[in-house]
Structure formats: structure tokens, C-alpha cells
């Protein structure tokens, strides 16, 4: 591909309807919001306008940014733990139907138990190490999509390829490495995309639950404190940072997924008609 063409296609992808349409919607809503606040004269402690939020974000940067970094650290560690443990457990599950049958329900139970309900327990048990407690909470929220997706992927091996491996006398190990894991990769990556966002949500919820008993440091704690103190613009600014982080995580994981599946998977290929 020549460089001019690449440049053009990149330019086009920025101007594509998928990017342009939501941007227009966003800008219009922000403008409407700002106008609403100004015309009705709503006090900022009820609803601050977007400009005020942005201004607050800049003035409070010194306290919000380090807080965000702490939450992101919890998120990333929980996410990495979820990814590795989810993958390993899924591999274990597909080794035998009995293992899967016996343990899968417990993974479901762990997933469906509301984290808000068990977070206080975990925080209590790990009261010497709040950071670890928060990581554990975020991990519980994040690991299930990876287990369920990867298990599904490891089971969805092409029937003929399976026969072929059998025909050439492939060992269990060879079949896992050369056939099952690659077959499961798109599913695993799909799980990662979901669980990236969930790690952040888990971290935020856990911080909320920990509240004043927690590490008093993460972004959720800042949101909580701002709302107690009726610093609503500051609360919105912290919220904005959290949301942007979530979007960033999703975009990053999508890019990773596309890069890894570039050559072969439908989801990563743009079909030319």
C-alpha cells in the first residue's frame, strides 16, 4: 500500500460515520447541557455545566490524578490476575467434562453474588492489606467472562481439524498448544474486552464499599468525599476521569484484539464489497 493511500484511509476512518455521528451527538448534548444550566440558573451543587466540570478538573488535577493512578493500579493488577487465572481455569475445565461439571457452577455462583454484598467481608478479612482486598474484589467481578468465554472457545474447535490432529497422532499437549488455544484466542480476547471494563467497575465499587475504612486514596474515594462535601463539580470531574479510563481500557483492548487477529478472524477484518 502506498503511503498516500494509507494517509487517506486513516483520514477517512476519522471522518467515517462511526466516529463522526457519536461525536456530533456528544457535542450537541454537551452544548444543550451547558445552555440548560445557564438559562435555568441551576446551582452548581445540583448540576454543574460541562465547562465548570472541565475547569474543576484542571484545578483539582493535583489531587485527582494521583487518586486515579491508585485505582488504575488496582484495576490493572486485578485484570491481569483475572486474565491469567481465567485462562488457566478454563484450560483445566476442558481437560475433563467432570472437572467442568463439578466446578463451573461455583464460578457462576461467585459471579452472581453481588460484589457490594461480599466486599465488606473481604475487606474485613484482609484488613491489614486494604489494597489486596480491593484487588480481590475487582478480580471477583472480572474473572468470570474470561473463564466462560475461554472455556467456550476451547470447546469450539473445528471438527475436521480435530480429526486431523487425531489422525496424525497428536498428543493432548500438542492439541492444546497448536489447536485448542489458537481456536480459543478470539473468545479469550472477547472475554478480555468485557473484563477490562469490569475490573475498573470492581475496583470502584470496592473502594466505595471500603469508604472511609479503606485506603482513602483511590478515585472512587474522591468521588465519595466530594459528594459528602457537596463539591459536586469536583465529583463530576472525578467521574469524568473514571469514565475516560474505562473508555481507554476498552479502546486499548480492542486494538490489542485486532492486532492479534489481524490475519485471520472475521471480527478483525474489514470486508471489502
Amino acid at each position, binding site marked *: 500500500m502506498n503511503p498516500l493511500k494509507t494517509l487517506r484511509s486513516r483520514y477517512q476512518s476519522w471522518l467515517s460515520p462511526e466516529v463522526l455521528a457519536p461525536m456530533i451527538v456528544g457535542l450537541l448534548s454537551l452544548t444543550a447541557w451547558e445552555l440548560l444550566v445557564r438559562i435555568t440558573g441551576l446551582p452548581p451543587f445540583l448540576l454543574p455545566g460541562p465547562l465548570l466540570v472541565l475547569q474543576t478538573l484542571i484545578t483539582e488535577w493535583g489531587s485527582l490524578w494521583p487518586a486515579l493512578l491508585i485505582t488504575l493500579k488496582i484495576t490493572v493488577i486485578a485484570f491481569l490476575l483475572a486474565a491469567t487465572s481465567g485462562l488457566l481455569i478454563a484450560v483445566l475445565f476442558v481437560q475433563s467434562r467432570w472437572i467442568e461439571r463439578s466446578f463451573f457452577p461455583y464460578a457462576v455462583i461467585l459471579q452472581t453474588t453481588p460484589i457490594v454484598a461480599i466486599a465488606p467481608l473481604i475487606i474485613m478479612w484482609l484488613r491489614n492489606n486494604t489494597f489486596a482486598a480491593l484487588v480481590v474484589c475487582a478480580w471477583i467481578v472480572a474473572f468470570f467472562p474470561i473463564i466462560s468465554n475461554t472455556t467456550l472457545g476451547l470447546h469450539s474447535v*473445528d471438527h475436521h481439524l480435530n*480429526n*486431523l490432529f487425531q*489422525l*496424525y497422532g497428536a498428543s493432548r499437549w500438542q492439541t492444546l498448544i*497448536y489447536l485448542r488455544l489458537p481456536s480459543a484466542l478470539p473468545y479469550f480476547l472477547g472475554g478480555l474486552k468485557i473484563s477490562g471494563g469490569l475490573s475498573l467497575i470492581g475496583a470502584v465499587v470496592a473502594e466505595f464499599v471500603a469508604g472511609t475504612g479503606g485506603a482513602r486514596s483511590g478515585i472512587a474515594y474522591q468521588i465519595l468525599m466530594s459528594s459528602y462535601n457537596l463539591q459536586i463539580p469536583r465529583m463530576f470531574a472525578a467521574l469524568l476521569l473514571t469514565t475516560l479510563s474505562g473508555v481507554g481500557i476498552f479502546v486499548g483492548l480492542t486494538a490489542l484484539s485486532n492486532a492479534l487477529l489481524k*490475519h*485471520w*478472524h472475521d471480527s478483525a477484518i474489514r470486508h471489502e464489497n
Partner: protein
Amino acid sequence: MADSAPLLQLHQVSKVYRNGTVALQDANLAIAPGEFVSLLGASGCGKSTVLRMIAGLGRPSTGSLWWDDPSHQGDLAFVFQEAALMPWATVLDNVGLPLKLKGYPPRQIRAIAQEAIALVGLQGSELTYPRQLSGGMRMRVSIARALITDPRLMLMDEPFGALDEMTRSRLNADLLQLWREKQWTVLFVTHNIYEAVYLSQRVVIMAPQPGRIHGEITIDAPYPRLEPFRTSPEFSQYCRAIAEQLAIADAI
């Protein structure tokens, strides 16, 4: 050829699947070394079942398989209708797979795979991915993968069934050439009469419900079979004879 000791024999082989389907009943078949035999019949008459049992991907319910030399039992390759390539691997890696599973060193795999790729006329496509290839090219990759272990018996289950007529003719001709060069034994499944006649020395006609062998017709035309053979009166006679047999097989 029919005089030499068979490479493989099926004795009264039946297959009943767990759900009660009688996929094959009392099949007897002998295949001589170097022979090109086709199994022809409507879908559901047990053609794939025969191939899968020969490949060891399923056992006969009753009856038995006899090999001239049991050590040759694993010396076979299977080509499916879908090319069954690994979408995440390049052509080179797909073709080299059987040797990789057998533990050959990477450099040797590469060399042998490259040779096989050249044999099926795909040199230059080593580093492309299956998705970038046409259906015919994918099937060539699949054949290259099958021939890489230098098998004695080549099992092909409607390999060209999904291809257009032109591509199919090209691949038919190329397959015959490879067969003559490599001196394989080929057991070829198809539901296309013309393809069966063009390729085979013997066409085994199968009938459905329950799946069974109805009879066979020997195609007594010399190789190499070139394009004119396809339009010869002899060719259409064979086709007509087989069509009649198929009609009888269906009616019983």
C-alpha cells in the same frame, strides 16, 4: 492391478451409530496398492463413514478391516471437503503441521513443506493466510498438507465438492498427475459421476438407506487421461452406465 495382494480389505463391515442409524451394511471392498478407486453415491449412503473407519476415526460395529501390513495403517492422509486449514497459520505452517506433530526439526519441516507447496503449484504463497486464498487454492494447500508425509493411502472425502466446475477440472487433472508421480493409492469420495469416471480405475457405486455397496464399474481407459477423454464417446458411455446403476441402486 487387481491381481496383486490388496493393500486394504473391508470384510462385511457394518456401522450403526449410537442413535440407531445404519450408516453402512455388510460392505466388502478390496483396494490394491497404487489403485485409484472412487466411492460414488447420493449423500447419506455411508461414503464418509467408510473413509472415517479406514482412517481409524471410528470403529466398525461388525466386520473387520485388513491391512496388508499393519504398520502401514497409520501411513495415510485425509483430505476433507472443507479445506480444514488453521486460519491463524500461514500456508507454510499449515502444510508443515503433520511433520510438526511428528516432531521433525523446524528447518526440515520448512524445506519439505516448501517442496510440497511447489508440487501443488502454490510457490510464492508460503506466507499468506488461508483467508487470502480462493477456494481452489485452499484445497491445494490441503492436498499439500496431505502429501507431506508421503502417505501410501490417500483418503479424499469430496475434496472438490465445493468448487466451481473450472477449478474442479484443473484440480482433477493435477491430482491425477500427482497420483501417477507419487504412486499413491487413492480412495476418492464424490457424488459427481463425471469426476468419478475421469479420475478412477474403478467406481464403487453405493446406495442409501441403509448405506451399502451396490456394485462397481471398471473404467478401462489408459492414463494419462487428457482433456479429450472428457468429451469422448467412451466417457459418456461410462457415465450413462453408472447413472443407470445409480438409478437401480436408488430404486431397491
